[in-house]
């Protein structure tokens, strides 16, 4: 105890530097944990958290007795799986292909351009989607009409949205992922390519049998990091593109948009926190188990 105190006094300047960070962590990451309590309460704003009555598991019973939870859970998982797979496939193509390009200016230009969409907010992306697909003035419908085809009611057809959302996601993040992969490729030894070349391997064979297999650990890690967050929908993306268009909810409503609406539009705090707690617990299970997997594959890439 005395030694602890002495350490504190001696290094007081050092420790004092961490105080602002600790304060922000506690206030914005730890205090909100209290909100999980509301899941077990019948929250009334006027009575506050502590004054409201306990509700036991009623909120959960209500949430799980309906069909919504199955739908939003399914959508969250399904959309995330689509995103993780297709983002990775396109990023791999871009990175491996760019690696084979000899013209420096071409490589540089393509890389700059495909990275650009990463810098745009989802609101703007939502706007772009609207310009392309909206029912009456959208460019896609306009082109369809010029080809003599029927216009399509994109914003009233739920089944097309997982596809459109996946395309937007590829558009926005494949370039960004490809840069991470390119950095990993840059770390590969030239010797592999050199000896493959001496053995008469073509460039295509080098891509397939050298670059791709050597990237495997990196690919697995990136995928597992994504899978660890599989219970968290991308609120910014979904709400930015779909907004409050209820017709599309059957295929696009994720846990995050659902709990947001429960809170902000219905004002049902207890219900919303039951959903959020369910999500946090499932998310915890996912991240801990996939982190254990990552740890097995590559110790340095683990999250904790």
């Amino acid at each position: 105890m005395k030694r602890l105190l002495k350490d504190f006094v001696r290094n007081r300047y050092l420790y004092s530097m961490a105080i602002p960070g600790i304060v922000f962590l506690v206030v914005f990451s730890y205090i909100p944990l209290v909100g999980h309590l509301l899941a077990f309460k019948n929250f009334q704003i006027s009575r506050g958290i502590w004054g409201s009555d306990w509700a036991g598991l009623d909120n959960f019973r209500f949430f799980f007795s309906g069909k919504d939870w199955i739908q939003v859970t399914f959508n969250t998982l399904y959309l995330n799986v689509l995103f993780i797979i297709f983002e990775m496939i396109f990023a791999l193509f871009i990175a491996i292909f760019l690696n084979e390009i000899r013209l420096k200016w071409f490589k540089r230009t393509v890389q700059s351009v495909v990275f650009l969409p990463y810098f745009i907010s989802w609101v703007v992306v939502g706007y772009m989607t609207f310009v392309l697909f909206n029912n009456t003035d959208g460019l896609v419908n306009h082109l369809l009409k010029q080809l003599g085809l029927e216009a399509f009611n994109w914003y009233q057809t739920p089944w097309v949205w997982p596809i459109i959302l996946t395309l937007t996601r590829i558009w926005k993040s494949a370039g960004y992922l490809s840069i991470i992969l390119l950095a990993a490729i840059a770390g590969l030894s030239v010797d592999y390519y050199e000896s493959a070349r001496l053995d008469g391997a073509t460039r295509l064979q080098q891509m397939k049998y050298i670059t791709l297999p050597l990237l495997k650990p990196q690919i697995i890690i990136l995928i597992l990091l994504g899978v660890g967050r599989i219970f968290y929908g991308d609120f910014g993306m979904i709400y930015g593109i779909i907004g409050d268009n209820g017709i599309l909810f059957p295929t696009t409503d994720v846990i995050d948009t659902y709990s947001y609406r429960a809170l902000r539009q219905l004002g049902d705090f207890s219900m919303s926190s039951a959903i959020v707690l369910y999500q946090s617990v499932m998310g915890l299970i996912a991240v801990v188990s996939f982190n254990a997997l990552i740890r097995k594959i590559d110790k340095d890439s683990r999250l904790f």
Partner: protein
Amino acid sequence: MNHPIVPVAPERKWRGGGLSERIAMPLIGLFLILFALACLFPFWLMVVNSFAGTRSLALNGYAIWPSELTLKSYRFLLQGKQMFTSYGVTATVTIAGTVAGLVVTALFAYVLAHPKNRYGGLLSFMTYVPMIFGSGLVGFYLLVVRWLHLKDTLWALVLPYIMNPFYAFIFVSFYRSLPHELNESATVDGANEWVIFYKIIRPISTPVIATIGLFYALQYWNDWWLSLLFVDNSDLYPLQLLLRQLMSQMQLTSLNHGNVLTLPPAEGVKLATVCLTIGPIIFVYPLVQKYFVKGLTLGSVKG
């Protein structure tokens, strides 16, 4: 700091290649060109249609090349007050948040990485827990609105993002790579840690500070989550929320298709708002791109 934009790939000797390669390589080039064009195309649509005249928009909708080009939308937009208000809000929040975020995370990470600190493990544990177990929307909302009373203030748009665990860990891995003798000698001279940090550590960490600073700036500039939750007063609308509000009106009109009055006349104005919102990013992008690439490669080594 001369960091190449394209991560340096190993120097390879290229050979002519057989028939399959002479077919494959152009196809690879074509794929890359098409993907790059697909990345640029939506930007083109936004920009060119923001110059489209009302009649052109009403007749043809959004076109690849509008039949009539005019500056009307921009003139209209710049006559109003809202655009300037929102620019002011976004700029203030971005600058304040970036500066505060850098100071707080850099200091925190410095302590975390310091060899004399006995609580490094505890501090990293504290930082990891929120990344693993979400504290959730409801508690966060109540905190800001009911306990801190920050609804409809600029504070609500700045404070929540200041301490970012991911960026803190990037700082930590950088500080760990520094030789310890650097501040050992200064400690002997009797300087305290704050002075050492300011005089020695800060100047040599300029590249990391630049990288993380840009990530912060991008996050604040593009954020609309906080304003969606906490801002109702249009004097405090950041650009992104302004756009969002314009858009939610548009989606309603898209639903009553078949109606003659589907296209609101202010269409061009909305597109012009988009262009003014992404404009600064597009202009700064070529200059700062290399720092982002550096940040991504740093982060992928150890998050």
